[in-house]
């Protein structure tokens, strides 16, 4: 399966999808950990996808979203942002509002 297809499946099969380094219980990078902590704090169920296990996916997701870094958060197929944007939205209460508007919490 072509990497783009694989990504499309992942973000459509999982309402909240976090492409990250490591796993939710064992993040391997401070930025990935910061986003995991925000999602856990908001009690949001999410799928953590460890890009360290798949070099093609690691580059593929950057091409897919035209975004140069990991982590990347997707909610219902939509790219929301990386660590900076997710943290900023969380601090402004926008992230919680977005999750409730999309019927996730």
């Amino acid at each position, binding site marked *: 399966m072509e990497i783009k297809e694989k990504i499309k499946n992942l973000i459509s099969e999982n309402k909240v999808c976090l492409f990250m380094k490591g796993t939710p219980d064992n993040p391997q990078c*401070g*930025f990935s950990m910061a986003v995991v902590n925000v999602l856990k704090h908001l009690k949001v169920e999410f799928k953590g996808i460890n890009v360290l296990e798949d070099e093609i996916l690691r580059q593929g997701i*950057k091409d897919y979203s*035209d*975004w*140069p*870094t*990991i982590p990347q958060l997707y909610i219902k197929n939509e*790219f929301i*942002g*990386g*660590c*900076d*944007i997710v943290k*900023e*939205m969380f601090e402004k209460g926008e992230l919680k509002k977005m999750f409730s508007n999309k019927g996730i919490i």
Partner: protein
Amino acid sequence: MPLPIEEIKKLIISSIPDASIEIKDLMGDNNHYSAIIKSKMFKGLNKIEQHKLVYKSLKGKMGNELHAFSITTEAI
């Protein structure tokens, strides 16, 4: 090879000429920065588009030589 602050500023200014840029070296190792970037060019763009403008100005260095570069953008 980490990227010195002056070079980061030069790169950003080359694409965003009116940018006002504040960069903090978080760990004093030329490798962990946080920056606040303000520009008229951000007006009408959402956060993702604003950040992409900054990343593009860094000409592929973001996520490579430049690993830890947290940014906050503001339209002025």
